[in-house]
């Protein structure tokens, strides 16, 4: 089994190959294509009226793929952006790589979407050229038209029938970036008008004829099972239709959501549970185990030089422990899915980030083949990795089957969402730095102890890449230090785990960038200067499985610092802090935070961010991702999930606080221009937000904070 990132790469590649295969095959689908409809590949249909339908092979959860991905195709085809309809793909033979995560949506589809557009453009040009009896290279395209010599002009719609009969070019020429009309320009979110009028359809908004609603009573301790229950009171609730047992608990099926919730409440009062192996789990025992693991055996993630020896030889050793808690996703749209089981198959409406897996697993749970399970993906009201899980979609299929016919929407409430999340686990970090007599950093040791997220992805198996995955952000420390040792000591926990926006990079970069700040202050060096020195005059550097271009990282750091006015005089109680990271060696980002601490209360005034993510597809989308990524990162400064007797203590936004409007700093985004292929922007701004802020808190107050979440009173 591979790491999450490898998995994404592999599935992305498989999807791309297939899409390319399709685009070479170029057969219109029966029932979908009329004679006059041009459908050269799975992404694109041009209708005789000139409108174009683009099918997006990734899922929209706010990151802007329903805008950015069509832009790549529309650019090469010179489509009229105002005549585009965007539809979501369905998992199946055409779309096998719908998994949406790891900031890979643009990079994973960039080539196939551009080629799909370019191939269609060449075919439309050839169709027009044949009609005009001129050479195709005498024609060009613009905003939905082919233009020919002598002012000749034909719309794509009128050419669609003729173009559909032509062979699909295998290697169509792609535009030069200098000729781009759409890419690199600010394009507002495609779904904006539907969202502001309430017309946008999210998973919870799916309404099918005869639809019922179910709420599932699940054991509050993950992994526990129902022992006894009495459904009489639940069935007496007005609107409750049935109470059925499913693998995850007891489902109350009703005419309305409120009736389902009320019925479930009545049922809950009667339930007894076998709470299972997690019944005694609590956060304090986990913390003790993690602390013990900070000095025990571990799996190496990176070992360069002899860090142990270098630490012994050091004139001074700095040592610190950093702590990061369990976190929840807390998407504003709670988990939900709607399913319908019929005699010969099933259909599902699920806001899944992993539609192919959702299809396979729900089908398997019902004893069906994947192709018998049609999956529709509505808009997603926040994903952040939570909806890579298939628990909620499989459960909905099981409830629909147990309900015995008709569509059923399974709705989770906020407490369900927090109690049964696929959590990002807690970690403890032990960092040691060796300094020699001349003030040079000679050794760096970073031990991470905690549960392994990757096991949630490998059916519980320990993957060979476990140590690297769990130390992502730590093993790829970009600084030139003679001896580096990064390792991971797994501590088992009986809690469901899953990917989270920024993954392990968030806690690991928090510890790394804050501890480096400690080193700078111990050396009496400016933190920016120390980083620039340690980045040095290097080019592309390989760390284990990753490579990164240090020049690009250095550049974003310099730009963020300059734009934020690094080094300027600030009033007492106010400070600047910075952090930088090369995300998976693909996207380079640096942030400078400006904070003040007044009467122990932290106020984050501004975060200045510089990024290099290769070519920018849509600057408007990029800025939104930076703002959102920073908000997500900062939110984690204040939140945590804790466990008592196998249950989460937190049950809602009242005790799992998320960032609110009044707490949001001003964000300034600077793009470092690049001609490299686009990488990704969803996660890179997240992990550096916390260390930038905490380093600024130190600058403002002299207090070093090594534990998230923050305490109410900072000083």
């Amino acid at each position, binding site marked *: 089994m591979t790491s999450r990132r490898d998995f994404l790469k592999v599935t992305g590649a498989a999807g791309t190959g297939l899409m390319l295969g399709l685009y070479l095959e170029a057969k219109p689908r029966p029932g979908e294509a009329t004679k006059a409809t041009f459908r050269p590949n799975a992404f694109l249909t041009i209708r005789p009226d000139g409108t174009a339908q683009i099918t997006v092979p990734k899922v929209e959860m706010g990151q802007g793929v329903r805008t950015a991905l069509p832009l790549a195709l529309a650019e090469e085809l010179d489509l009229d952006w105002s005549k585009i309809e965007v539809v979501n793909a369905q998992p199946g033979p055409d779309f096998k790589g719908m998994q949406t995560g790891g900031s890979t949506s643009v990079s994973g589809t960039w080539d196939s979407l551009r080629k799909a557009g370019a191939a269609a453009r060449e075919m439309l040009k050839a169709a027009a050229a044949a009609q005009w009896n001129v050479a195709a290279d005498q024609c060009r395209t613009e905003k939905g038209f082919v233009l020919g010599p002598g002012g000749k002009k034909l719309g794509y719609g009128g050419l669609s029938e003729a173009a559909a009969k032509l062979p699909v070019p295998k290697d169509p020429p792609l535009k030069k970036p200098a000729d781009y009309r759409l890419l690199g320009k600010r394009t507002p979110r495609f779904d904006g008008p539907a969202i502001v*009028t309430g017309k946008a359809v*999210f998973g919870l908004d799916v309404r099918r004829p005869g639809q019922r609603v179910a709420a599932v009573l699940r054991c509050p301790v993950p992994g526990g099972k129902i022992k006894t229950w009495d459904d009489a009171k639940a069935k007496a609730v007005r609107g409750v239709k049935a109470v059925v047992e499913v693998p995850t608990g007891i489902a109350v099926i009703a005419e309305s959501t409120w009736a389902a919730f009320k019925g479930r409440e009545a049922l809950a009062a009667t339930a007894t549970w076998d709470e299972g192996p997690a019944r005694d789990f609590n956060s304090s025992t986990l913390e003790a185990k993690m602390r013990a693991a900070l000095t025990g055996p571990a799996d190496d993630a990176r070992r360069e030089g002899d860090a142990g020896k270098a630490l012994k030889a050091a004139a001074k050793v700095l040592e610190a422990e950093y702590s990061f808690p369990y976190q929840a996703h807390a998407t504003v749209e709670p988990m939900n899915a709607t399913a319908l089981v019929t005699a010969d198959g099933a259909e599902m409406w699920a806001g899944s980030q992993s539609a192919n897996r959702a299809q396979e697993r729900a089908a398997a749970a019902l004893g069906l083949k994947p192709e018998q399970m049609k999956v529709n993906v509505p808009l997603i009201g926040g994903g952040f990795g939570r909806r890579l899980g298939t628990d909620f979609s499989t459960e909905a299929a099981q409830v629909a089957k147990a309900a015995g016919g008709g569509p059923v929407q399974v709705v989770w409430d906020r407490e369900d969402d927090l109690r049964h999340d696929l959590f990002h686990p807690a970690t403890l970090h032990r960092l040691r730095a060796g300094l020699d007599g001349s003030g040079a950093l000679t050794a760096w040791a970073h031990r991470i102890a905690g549960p392994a997220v990757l096991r949630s992805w490998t059916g519980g198996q320990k993957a060979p890449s476990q140590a690297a995955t769990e130390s992502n952000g730590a093993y790829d420390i970009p600084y030139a230090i003679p001896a580096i040792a990064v390792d991971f000591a797994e501590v088992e926990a009986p809690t469901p785990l899953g990917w989270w926006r920024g993954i392990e990079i968030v806690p690991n970069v928090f510890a790394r960038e804050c501890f480096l700040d400690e080193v700078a202050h111990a050396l009496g060096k400016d933190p920016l200067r120390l980083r620039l020195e340690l980045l040095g005059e290097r080019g592309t550097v390989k760390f284990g499985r990753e490579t990164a271009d240090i020049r690009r990282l250095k550049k974003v750091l310099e730009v963020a610092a300059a734009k934020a006015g690094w080094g300027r005089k600030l009033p007492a109680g106010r400070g600047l802090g910075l952090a930088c990271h090369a995300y998976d060696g693909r996207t380079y980002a640096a942030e400078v935070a400006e904070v003040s601490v007044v009467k122990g209360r932290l106020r984050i005034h501004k975060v200045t961010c510089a990024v290099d993510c290769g070519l920018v597809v849509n600057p*408007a989308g990029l800025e939104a991702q930076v*703002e959102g990524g920073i908000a997500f990162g900062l*939110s984690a400064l204040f939140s945590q999930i804790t466990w008592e007797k196998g249950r989460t203590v937190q049950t809602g936004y009242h005790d799992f606080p*998320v960032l609110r409007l009044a707490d*949001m700093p001003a964000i300034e985004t600077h793009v470092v221009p690049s001609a490299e292929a686009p990488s990704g922007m969803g996660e890179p701004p997240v992990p550096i937000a916390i260390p930038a802020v905490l380093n600024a808190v130190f600058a403002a107050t002299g207090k070093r904070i090594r534990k998230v979440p923050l305490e109410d009173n900072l000083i």
Partner: protein
Amino acid sequence: MPTYQLTVNGRVRTVDADADTPLLWILRDTLGLTGTKFGCGQGACGSCTVHLDGQAVKSCQTSLKEAAGHSVITVEGLSKDGSHPVQKAWIAEDVAQCGYCQPGMIMTAAALLKRKAHPTDGDIDEAFADHVCRCGTYPRIRKAVKRAAGGVK
């Protein structure tokens, strides 16, 4: 079983449901108006915000009995065609990311601007204190409110 009458987006509706049913579920499940969102049911996220006699209220914390006899406006009824100044400002500032919390945000903004044509930053902080946007669209919400300022009658 008693029935309740309320005016929703200008239309009188008669509803047969329990008195304690939250207005949220009457709108979403009984009347099919899914623009009003369910986020927490605990009054802590603001996704379900609607106008009750012109005031922004959380429809998950407002019972059918409380809403009966009153006028409810949802995001679907804010304008016929998305032309309400707040909706236009939301598009101009490209506010939404996933968009799920935005109908609630828009309803709060519209009520705020009706009450106070030119709100201060402090007014905006206060008006949105009970709202959650997990995508982090807050800087654009603030800008959009300011853009729409003075335009809500």
